[in-house]
């Protein structure tokens, strides 16, 4: 038999295995318990090896996902049967318990239950007692089916570090009997907030990381969006802040490819070709933003998404509604009084023509000295503003500092261009 004759090579759906791994791990964890995560991962690995062996010689089954689930399910029933046999009970009772167990296992493999198990896994990985970095690593490993090498690449870290984080998180969960469940009531609210933070972190790692390679960054953003969507489709997760976060991700992702130029240089919002923004994603962004507009909670994601929507609404940079934008930033600052929000608000003041107020707003940021020495974005913005204000010395000092701080070649290039201009004293284009 030759299934390959004549046709073009068979194709698997992108990330099929990765997505199925997440599903299988979640379902099997429900069956074997979170303390048996090793056994669960081994079983999933076996399932893939079996697929690898049979599919490559013959044909990919019509429904690969169902095939994988069936193999995992049979293997599970097998393992459970073996457990039963060890019990010190009569054969009759053992058989009875066995058929009971098999029925329950079959239930766990139903689509709705799979989704439920995945949510449990997300909530468990985002247990507030875990370090944020451990939460992220464990989520990528068990919920998203990333390998350790892939996680290390995506988070620009070493394999050993990632191994350690995953190990630490697993041990903590085991030692403290963290339940594999979806929390209820007030705990649910709190846990959802942690989940949002982890998903947003995942997305931003992909969106902003200047070191990781393009492909893995894309994967990371896509994965954060997939998990957020999964959350939104579940009864406990389909709440306004989830939709707000999802819409924010859509708006941001619509500009993903427009931010990097042909020479791997960063293209600022101002200079991006807006026709290259992904309209499909922008449309989805608005849809989710509408879905988020119910209830009485105004989350930071609502405001950040509204800000991103403002950018998408403007046909070009200069017709951005800066006044409305400033109002949104005032709201955001009240909810999330962080230096980076203050910095962005200051940039808006400058856009509205008030460079002096913008500089003052930055100088007001508490702990600014420290930020200027460690995070390139602060000296980069401040240097730019000083230049607009005509203070060449301060401009040069801060821009050089930013140049030294950023690890990104693309950013360095951008800053070098500015430094050249400051040196030759050409006026900043667009400054008036």
């Amino acid at each position: 038999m030759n299934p390959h004759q004549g046709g073009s090579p068979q194709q698997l759906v992108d990330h099929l295995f990765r997505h199925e791994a997440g599903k299988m791990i979640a379902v099997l964890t429900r069956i074997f318990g979170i303390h048996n995560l090793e056994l669960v991962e081994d079983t999933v690995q076996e399932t893939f090896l079996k697929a690898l062996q049979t599919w490559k010689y013959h044909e990919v089954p019509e429904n690969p996902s169902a095939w994988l689930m069936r193999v995992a399910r049979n293997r599970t029933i097998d393992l459970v049967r073996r457990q039963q046999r060890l019990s010190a009970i009569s054969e009759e009772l053992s058989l009875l318990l066995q058929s009971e167990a098999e029925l329950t296992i079959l239930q766990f493999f139903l689509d709705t239950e799979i989704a439920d198990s995945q949510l449990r896994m997300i909530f468990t990985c985002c247990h507030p007692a875990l370090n944020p970095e451990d939460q992220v690593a464990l989520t990528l490993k068990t919920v998203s089916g990333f390998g350790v090498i892939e996680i290390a690449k995506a988070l620009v870290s070493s394999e050993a570090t990632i191994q350690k984080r995953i190990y630490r998180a697993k041990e903590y969960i085991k030692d403290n009997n963290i339940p594999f469940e979806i929390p209820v009531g007030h705990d649910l609210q709190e846990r959802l907030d942690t989940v949002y933070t982890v998903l947003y972190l995942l997305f931003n790692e992909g969106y902003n990381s200047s070191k990781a390679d393009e492909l893995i960054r894309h994967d990371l953003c896509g994965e954060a969006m997939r998990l957020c969507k999964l959350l939104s489709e579940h009864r406990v997760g389909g709440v306004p802040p989830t939709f707000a976060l999802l819409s924010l991700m859509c708006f941001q992702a619509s500009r993903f490819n427009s931010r990097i130029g042909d020479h791997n240089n960063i293209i600022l919002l101002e200079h991006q070709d807006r026709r290259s923004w992904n309209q499909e994603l922008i449309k989805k962004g608005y849809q989710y933003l509408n879905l988020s507009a119910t209830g009485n909670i105004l989350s930071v994601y609502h405001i950040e998404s509204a800000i991103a929507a403002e950018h998408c609404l403007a046909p070009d940079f200069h017709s951005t509604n800066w006044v409305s934008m400033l109002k949104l930033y005032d709201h955001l600052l009240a909810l999330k009084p962080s230096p980076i929000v203050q910095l962005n608000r200051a940039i808006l003041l400058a856009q509205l023509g008030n460079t002096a107020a913008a500089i003052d707003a930055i100088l007001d940021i508490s702990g600014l000295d420290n930020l200027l020495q460690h995070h390139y974005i602060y000296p980069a913005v401040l240097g730019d503003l000083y230049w607009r204000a005509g203070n060449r010395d301060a401009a040069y000092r801060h821009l050089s500092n930013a140049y030294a701080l950023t690890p990104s070649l693309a950013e360095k290039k951008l800053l070098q261009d500015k430094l050249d201009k400051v040196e030759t004293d050409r006026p900043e284009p667009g400054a008036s």
Partner: protein
Amino acid sequence: MFIFRGSAPKDLVLSPEEAQASMQKWFEWIGQLSAKGRYVAGDPLLKEGKSIEGKKPVVTDGPFAEGKELVGGYFIIKAESLEEATELAFGFPDFEIQGSVEIREIMKIPMA
């Protein structure tokens, strides 16, 4: 005949994405062989098996070889010569994960 060894042992740990990439490489290789009209058949071999040996034959349970020595499957292909077959075998996707290919010609026995 291509006899494949290694690359399917239990100790091979691939991430889901790597496993998928590996499978895709196989599809492309088989696709290429098929497009050239070279591919005839192929099957994987299960790891479990038995072997009988000795003057007083004794049955032992497999696996007979460890890891990279274990035969994982075979292809039957059409080629003009052993040289051409060897050339085609360079497309084998699992060299990187310690797999190997043995290339053997199936003897044609002329009908009397």
